[in-house]
């Protein structure tokens, strides 16, 4: 690592932790110290970690609601249109708009669209698929999918300073603080 890389090509600084509790405590302290641009990387979902790093805007449930409503109206609309407009047939004197009979399909369409939105919406909001990310450059990061917990303070943070932030993270973690190169 040359000195030029350190200053110009830094994505952030990364601290490593052994347990989710250590990481959670460190994330709280980092947020309290005024850092905002950060992310944590964990092998399991850790309860409260999103709050700790200041992540609040979770729009997944809103998207799923909208997807479900689209499926619901679309499914009902399709059957209504088929049986009263496109192919209106008198079957044994039943009303054209026999809406009770449309409920099963309407329900299935609601679930289908809501589920598709949940999965594709979630991945889209997460920015996945994304094959490359700077954090993968840290060799120890391979354990983020195994048994280690990471906290990365990003260089875009206004308060970020390569030396002072490093000192700050070193006090939180018992491991070496790693530089994350872009």
């Amino acid at each position, binding site marked *: 690592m040359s000195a030029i890389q350190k200053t110009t090509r830094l994505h952030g600084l990364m601290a490593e932790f052994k347990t989710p509790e250590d990481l959670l405590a460190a994330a709280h302290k980092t947020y309290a110290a005024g850092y905002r641009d950060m992310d944590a990387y964990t092998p399991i979902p850790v309860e409260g970690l999103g709050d700790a790093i200041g992540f609040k805007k979770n729009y997944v449930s809103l998207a799923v609601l909208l997807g479900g409503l689209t499926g619901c109206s679309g499914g009902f609309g399709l059957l209504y249109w088929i049986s009263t407009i496109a192919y209106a047939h008198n079957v044994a004197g039943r009303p054209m708009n026999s809406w009770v009979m449309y409920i099963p399909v309407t329900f299935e369409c609601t*679930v289908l669209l809501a589920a598709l939105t949940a999965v594709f919406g979630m991945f889209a909001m997460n920015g*996945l698929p994304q094959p490359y990310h700077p954090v993968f450059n840290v060799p120890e990061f391979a354990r983020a999918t195994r048994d280690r917990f990471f906290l990365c303070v990003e260089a875009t943070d206004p308060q970020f300073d390569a030396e002072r932030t490093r000192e700050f993270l070193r006090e939180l973690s018992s491991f070496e603080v790693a530089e994350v190169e872009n």
Partner: protein
Amino acid sequence: MKTEDELLDRPLPPSIDPGPDSVLGPGHNFGTVTDKIANIPFSPLRKTPKQWFFALAAGFVLLQLLLVAATYLFYKGIGIWGVDIPVGWGFAIVNFVWWIGIGHAGTLISAILLLLKQDWRTSINRFSEAMTLFAVACAGLFPVLHTGRPWLAYWLLPYPNSMWLWPQPRSPLLWDVFAVSTYATVSVLFWLTGLVPDFAVMRDKAVNRWQQVLFGILSLGWRGSAKHWERYQMAYLLLAGLSTPLVLSVHTVVSFDFAISILPGWHTTIFPPYFVAGAVYSGFAMVLTLAIPTRKWFHLEDIITLRHLESASKVMLGTGLIVAYGYSMEAFISWYSGNTYERFMYWNRMTGPYGFFYGMLILCNIAIPQLLWSQKVRRSIPALFIISLVVNMGMWLERFVIVVVSLHRDFLPSSWGMYYPTVWDWATFVGTLGLFTTLMWLFVRFVPMIAIFEVREVVHHLEHQKLEVSPSAGD
């Protein structure tokens, strides 16, 4: 290759079943559960259990039988099957309903037990979801083959066509198309969403370049970001919430195929709940049938423990009792209705030409599973395995009795008939067993069959409970 062997040889705690009280064997931490589960797809073929090869070979041979049967069917038409008037729905519909039902346990385990926060769900959910997918694939084949001209199966869907014809929205057969295709899609989504973080585990564990690239693509670049986990968990929870009514609706709609008609033996309001209970019943039986040999072959006794097996057998007992209630209500109502046709239908079901199968059905589905009241039986693995096979057979007989026996005595004696399955009926049915088991055995060998990150959550949870799990991750 050396490094690969080194990685595979990292010491693991012994595969000891911790008994009926714990969902995880002693000595596990984040690292060891990861290695234990992810080593199976990475292990070289020479280290694959011998039994797996025999099981795969058996399934593969039966799969060829399916291909032969399907080819001959496409060549000759459905005249090669035993279906005729009055029994126009034979094995194809029996097998369709049976397979769809088997799939239901997967969704029940992954969705409903997640919402109910059952800790014994975790080690078997991925496995059962895969079972759902493959069972639905087998189920989906039958209506398509039964159309006689499967290349025109897309006519089932509402799509703009030059004849401006549309399917009938008031028919349960159209509802079925929507229910089954939605169910298949949502099951795939649920399964793949669960797999993404585990593919990332595989990517980071892989030592060969092609494996790294393959799992890198499959993992979509998952990096375990806290923000991603927040959205991921919300999406997963919502999927579970959506799948719960979905799974209940699917077999309800399947039962509507029968219940909406006016045929004695089909036209009853108890069909939806009793079909759903029967579906879960047979599904849990299939989970046990597959999980018991798999955990032995791959030495997973410490992750799929007696607690999982016993809990599954309790669900079997419970749903089996609902099914028993369904049978008795059917019998009671057909007598109480005072309707000649209803009474004759039930009497004929018990004592008619197919009466033997009704007796077998009661024996398999109601009498034998009562053994599960005994704790000794629930904790005996051979007994559970045998009972699960018995229930699978019983549920297949139930569908046979409902479909064939209700049809073969029409309202007028002049239109009575019999249904005899031909060799092609059997070949198609046995063939789908081959398709199902082939896919299942390939899955357990090449994909992480247990949700790695969810088992790690169990490890974390157990550490907090200060159970006999080692306190922290090894270095």
